């Protein structure tokens, strides 16, 4: 007599437990999928975001009095960059970056932008000494924002 209802209870309990465990597993699975998807999108965006130095690294003019120089950078990637998101470090010193003659923030592929870089603190660089110049750029489009940075050894033509 009691076999039927007890099996029903066991079946129901089993189904509830299975549903709970499955829900948990699917939730974890979904989180992993979303993470992988976002990571993949980020990697693709980063791969398309590139920039390179156009200025001759062996002779970059640096004004020791005004603490400034002019750097030319080309968008060598596959997507447009945001000019205003560019950052530049010279010998580890963060520079104030001002785009010259640039209209808007869109920086198309192949286009070269001239940047005035200046230090807010007094810097004195020596001629014929190698320094590290680091440039970072970001994509114009969001979700996600692609980023790229490169570092080159440069020789300054100090004045």
């Amino acid at each position, binding site marked *: *007599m009691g*076999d*039927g209802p007890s*099996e*029903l209870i066991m*079946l129901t309990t*089993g*189904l509830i437990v*299975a549903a709970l465990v*499955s829900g948990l*597993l*699917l939730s974890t*699975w*979904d989180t*992993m*999928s979303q993470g*992988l*998807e976002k*990571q*993949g999108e980020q*990697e*693709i965006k*980063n*791969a*398309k975001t*590139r920039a*390179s*130095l*156009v*200025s*001759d690294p*062996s*002779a*970059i*003019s640096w004004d020791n009095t005004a603490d400034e120089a*002019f750097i*030319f950078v*080309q968008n*060598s*990637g*596959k997507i447009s960059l945001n000019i205003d998101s560019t950052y530049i470090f010279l010998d580890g010193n963060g520079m104030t970056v001002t785009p010259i003659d640039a209209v808007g923030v869109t920086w198309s*592929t*192949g286009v*070269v932008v*001239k940047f005035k870089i200046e230090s807010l603190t007094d810097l004195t660089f020596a001629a014929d000494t190698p320094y590290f110049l680091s440039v970072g750029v970001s994509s114009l489009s969001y979700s996600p924002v692609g980023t790229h940075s490169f570092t080159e050894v440069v020789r300054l*033509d100090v004045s």
Partner: protein
Amino acid sequence: MLGGLNCLKRRDNWLAGSSVAGMVVGTVFIVIFASATVTMVDIVNKAQLAAQVELPDPEIILVSVVWDEVDTLTYTITNTGSEAVKIEHIFLSEDNADPFSCSTLTRTPSLTYIFPGETISAVEAGLGASPSRAFLVVFEYSSSVAVTT
């Protein structure tokens, strides 16, 4: 006797019902997990696309840069790579002067693109003195030569 048989029959019905329900639920779970697996594999495959992004990979070399007595500088440029390159993406500079696009110079032949294997000459006029070195950049490729007279 009949009561006992009915009880057994009912028990068999419960068992059959449980089995069918278990199979249905199991099948549903298998379908859900299979679908989730397929989705995840698809996402993983998409993530691999990052490695397949093809960036411009030009190879343009400065063959020579010759200074002329009439204050002109003649650049000879060859595309030694495997892809056509837009001339306006090629930038030249001398010594520590500002770089400028090759498209601003008078070119022979006057091409918009330089294809693999092609060579062009570009003339820059109106220079006061001969520079010592010329530098070419196109995307992440650069080339440099000493200026000859």
